[in-house]
C-alpha cells in the first residue's frame, strides 16, 4: 500500500512540476495564432507567467482589424483537474455600443473534473447576469441571461436571439 501511495505522490508532484514548467506564454502565443485564423487578434497586451497561471493585462481585442474593445485582465489557470479562464473589466468599443452592451465586469469559463462533461460559463456586466455551459461531447452551448430592464429596451434585437423560458432568457445552439 505504501509504495502505491508513494508512487501516486511522486506522480502528483511530477504533474505539478510539469504544470509549473509548462511554457504558458508560448502556449498563449499558439492560441493567438489559432485566433488569428478566425480574424480575432489580442494586441498590445502585457503577459506575465506566474507559475501556475498566466496573467494578461490591457489586451486590445480586434476582429477583422476593427477595434472591439479592451480587456483589463485575463487570467488563465491550469491545474489539469481544474482549469479556468477569466476575464475582468472588458470594455467594448464605444462605436459598437449600438449592438452590444458596453461593459463586462467578469466572465469566467472553467472546466473541472467535478463536472467533466461541461465547460461552465458565468459572468456579469451591463448585459446582466450570465450563466451557462458548453458541452463539447454533444457540441452544445446553452446560456441563461438575466438582463436588467434597460437591456430589453436598448438591445431588443440582441435579446431576440434568446428564448423566454419561464421568465429566464435562454440561448441554445449547436456548433
Amino acid at each position: 500500500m505504501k509504495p502505491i501511495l508513494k508512487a501516486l505522490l511522486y506522480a502528483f508532484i511530477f504533474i505539478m512540476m510539469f504544470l509549473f514548467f509548462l511554457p504558458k506564454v508560448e502556449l498563449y502565443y499558439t492560441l493567438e495564432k489559432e485566433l488569428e485564423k478566425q480574424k480575432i487578434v489580442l494586441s498590445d497586451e502585457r503577459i506575465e507567467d506566474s507559475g501556475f497561471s498566466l496573467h494578461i493585462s490591457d489586451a486590445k481585442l480586434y476582429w477583422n482589424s476593427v477595434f472591439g474593445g479592451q480587456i483589463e485582465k485575463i487570467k488563465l489557470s491550469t491545474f489539469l483537474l481544474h482549469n479556468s479562464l477569466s476575464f475582468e473589466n472588458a470594455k467594448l468599443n464605444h462605436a459598437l455600443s449600438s449592438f452590444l452592451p458596453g461593459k463586462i465586469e467578469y466572465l469566467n469559463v472553467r472546466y473541472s473534473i467535478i463536472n467533466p462533461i461541461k465547460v461552465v460559463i458565468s459572468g456579469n456586466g451591463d448585459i446582466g447576469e450570465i450563466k451557462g455551459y458548453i458541452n463539447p461531447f454533444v457540441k452544445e452551448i446553452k446560456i441563461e441571461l438575466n438582463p436588467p430592464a434597460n437591456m430589453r429596451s436598448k438591445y431588443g434585437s440582441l435579446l431576440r436571439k434568446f428564448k423566454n423560458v419561464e421568465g429566464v432568457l435562454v440561448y441554445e445552439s449547436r456548433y
Partner: protein
Amino acid sequence: MNLDINRYSNTLVTLFVLALVAKALSLTMLYFLEKKGVSQVSDITYTMPYQAYRFSKTFAIVEQKVQTKQKTAAQTKPLYNLNSLMLKAIYKSKNGGFIVALDKTKNNKSVFIKLHNEYNGYTLKSITQNRATFERNNQEYKLEFVETKSMTMFKKAPSPKPPSYDNDVIRAVAKTEVHKYTKDFKSIWKSIAIKEVVKNGKITGFKVNFIKEGTIFDKLGLKKDDLIIAVNNKPMLSYASAFKVYGEVNKMTSLKITVIRNNQEKDLEYEIY
C-alpha cells in the same frame, strides 16, 4: 541516522530527476509552440487623409463671433453696400442653409453666410431657390443670381424628391446631421439597407438595397442598387473598412463615395460643413 540521510537523499534525487524530466518535457513542448505573439499592426504606410477642395479653409466663413466685432467696427466705417455681393450659390435644408457669394470689396473673395447670421450689418433673413433676403434696420434687401452658369457648387435639395445630381457636383451636408447618425447607429438602418456583395469569397462592395425617402442618404444622391465600392478613395472590401469610415466620419470635412451605377463608376462628393 545514516539510513535516514540515505532515505532523504534518495527522495531528493528522485524529486530532482522528476523536475528534470518535467523541465525536459516542457522544453520539448516549447520546440513545437509559437515563439512570437500576434499583434494588430496598423497600416504604417502613411496615406494622406482625404481632403476635397475646402471652401471653409480657403475662403472666409462668416462666423457669429467675427460679426460681433465687425458690427462695432461698422459703426465707424461707411455703410456697406449690399450690391458689392454677387450671389453664387444657395444651399437650403429643412433646418437652415447658407449662401455663397463673391464680395467685390474683398477682391471677389468667396464668403459663406449662414441663415440668420449677419454680414456687414445685414442679417440673412430668408433664402429661396434663387433669392437671398437680407434685413437691416427693418428694411429688406434682396440678392439674386447674376449668372446662373456658375451655380455648380451647391444646389438646393428640394423635398420630398431628391434632385438628380450630375457628376462633378459637390453637395453640402450639415455636420449636425452626420453626428445624429453616428450617435444613433440604429437610425442608419431605418434609413438605408446595404448588403455586402461577395464574389469568389471576397467582398467587392456594398449594395444599396433600400433608401428611405427624405433621409440624409436620399439627399446624398445614393440610389437603390448602387454598389458602393470606395469611400474617400479607399476600397470598401471588408466590414472593417466600412466600420473604419463610420468611426472617422465625424472628423471628416469632405467625403467622396464611389459607386457603380448602371455599370458605370460614379463619384458622389460632399462637403461636411
